[in-house]
């Protein structure tokens, strides 16, 4: 029931905003949907797999940069650029995961962070593709079929459809054998091995799937903002995704999307001058306080609190 309502609101949103003459918010909502996808991908490894990856921006940023670089080289077709972006992000996750997953705990957090920072500096030093300044996209990827993604209306629905598809596939995966195994590994890795599961392989595949989804979100964000810069790969970006997941609910199916929506809305509200005037520059302070309150009073995140209320 609730999911139908959410779908309905999401589908009607651009029309409502258009009717109200607030088309800006459609573009804002698109950004929320893209971050919802990125946060959901992080929640797969962090929440369900128990792998605290502090370098998820690496895959998000890689997806974004691949689309921008291909565009700079004249390849703008979505049918080529996006799959390549996803594949490169998955490959990066395979390499980073294969090494990082040999460690545990704090070491895993640090090594994923280190890899992401390495990627950040690689792109900063790529002078051919903007270096520090990043790379702007001349226009959105071309889809063919006589449709143009430059229309924000169309673009919103494309992103919404992709997010719905990704969430649907994640839901299937989590309720199939694979999902049960990765949750079991999170619960008790030693025992999972002792009943015959090759833990490393499951974790690595989970990591790669998550990286691929983050790569797709990256391909979308570069189309959204028409710009791929090193900040997309910076550790602050990884931290933001992690905050979204914690805010929404670690290991909760809707944790990623809810966290992304709430954080971006808070940021929007508190950084807009009408509310706080000159203090809007310091929007991080109220957002931080709210985050603190959520962690203290709803340790299972907002999705967890919602689930508890409806019981």
């Amino acid at each position, binding site marked *: 029931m609730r999911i139908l309502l959410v779908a309905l609101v999401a589908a009607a949103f651009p029309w409502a905003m258009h009717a109200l003459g607030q088309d800006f918010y459609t573009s804002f909502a698109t950004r929320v949907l893209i971050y919802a996808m990125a946060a959901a991908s992080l929640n797969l490894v962090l929440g369900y797999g128990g792998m605290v990856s502090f370098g998820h921006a690496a895959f998000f940023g890689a997806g974004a940069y691949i689309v921008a670089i291909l565009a700079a080289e004249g390849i703008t077709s979505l049918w080529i650029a996006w799959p390549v972006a996803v594949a490169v992000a998955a490959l990066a996750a395979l390499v980073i995961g294969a090494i990082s997953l040999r460690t545990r705990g704090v070491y895993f957090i640090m090594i994923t962070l280190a890899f992401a920072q390495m990627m950040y500096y690689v792109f900063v030093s790529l002078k051919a593709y903007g270096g520090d300044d990043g790379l702007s996209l001349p226009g959105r990827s071309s889809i063919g079929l006589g449709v143009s993604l430059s229309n924000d209306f169309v673009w919103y629905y494309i992103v919404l459809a992709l997010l719905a598809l990704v969430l649907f*596939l994640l839901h*299937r*995966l989590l*309720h*199939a*054998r*694979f*999902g*049960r*195994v990765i949750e*079991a590994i999170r*619960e*008790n890795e*030693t*025992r999972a*091995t*002792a*009943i*015959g*599961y*090759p*833990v490393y392989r*499951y974790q690595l*595949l989970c990591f790669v799937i998550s990286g691929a989804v983050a790569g797709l979100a990256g391909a979308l964000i570069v189309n959204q903002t028409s710009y791929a810069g090193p900040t997309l790969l910076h550790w602050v970006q990884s931290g933001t995704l992690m905050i979204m997941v914690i805010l929404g609910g670690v290991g909760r199916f809707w944790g990623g999307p809810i966290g992304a929506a709430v954080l971006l809305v808070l940021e929007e509200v508190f950084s807009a001058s009408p509310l706080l005037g000159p203090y809007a520059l310091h929007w991080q302070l109220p957002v931080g306080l709210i985050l603190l309150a959520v962690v203290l009073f709803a340790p299972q995140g907002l999705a967890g609190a919602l689930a508890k209320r409806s019981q």
Partner: protein
Amino acid sequence: MLSLRDLSKSFGGVVAVDRVTLEVRAGEVHALIGPNGAGKTTLIHQVSGSLPADTGQILFEERDITRLAAHERVRAGLARSYQVTSLFRRFSVLDNLALAVQARSGSSFSFWRPLAAERALFDEARDIAARINLTRVDIPAASLSHGEQRALEVGLALATRPKLVLLDEPMAGMGLEESKRMIDLVRRVRESVTVLLVEHDMDAVFRLADRISVMVNGRLIATGAPEAIRRNEEVRRAYLGDELAA
């Protein structure tokens, strides 16, 4: 069925397992006893594959498994339980068992078909729950009593359909009544599975074991039938003391 040949393990300068050679015969209950710190659990870790052997060989059904990964040994039919209860605490009892059944029935790299539709897994999990006398299968493993958790601990090992099961102190922390139930359970297990039993409860050991091996300071000092072990002078001096002399 299981042969250990000159198996050793040191931690820094401490020799935990010192050239142990041991043969577990198919169908028997073989008990491994010894004082605390004798190296019994280290030996179990080596056999199950969670610790590598420094030197020596482990043969299981004539196959060298010394270098096999822990999960591959389970596939080969060698399962274990833990001295400190190790369950999927937030999963239900049924889900715990179904997960172990799932591990050996088909690939778990399955991303589409809902697990809930796999009736066979849960039917078999129910059978195992009945075998280990657990009736409350829908509650989280964490809310079982200590004795029930110990039974589930053994059940998880059984669910992998092992040929040989390593039971690491299944009676640990149990009262008299619970111990009795565990002894019954091990008796039922042994009808189909070879058992290597590490246990401190001498009463249980002498009731269950066909043969007993005694480990002291990392070394195996004796192997034999319970009566022979009871009479063995060296064993008495090193371990059993006077409590069994009567």
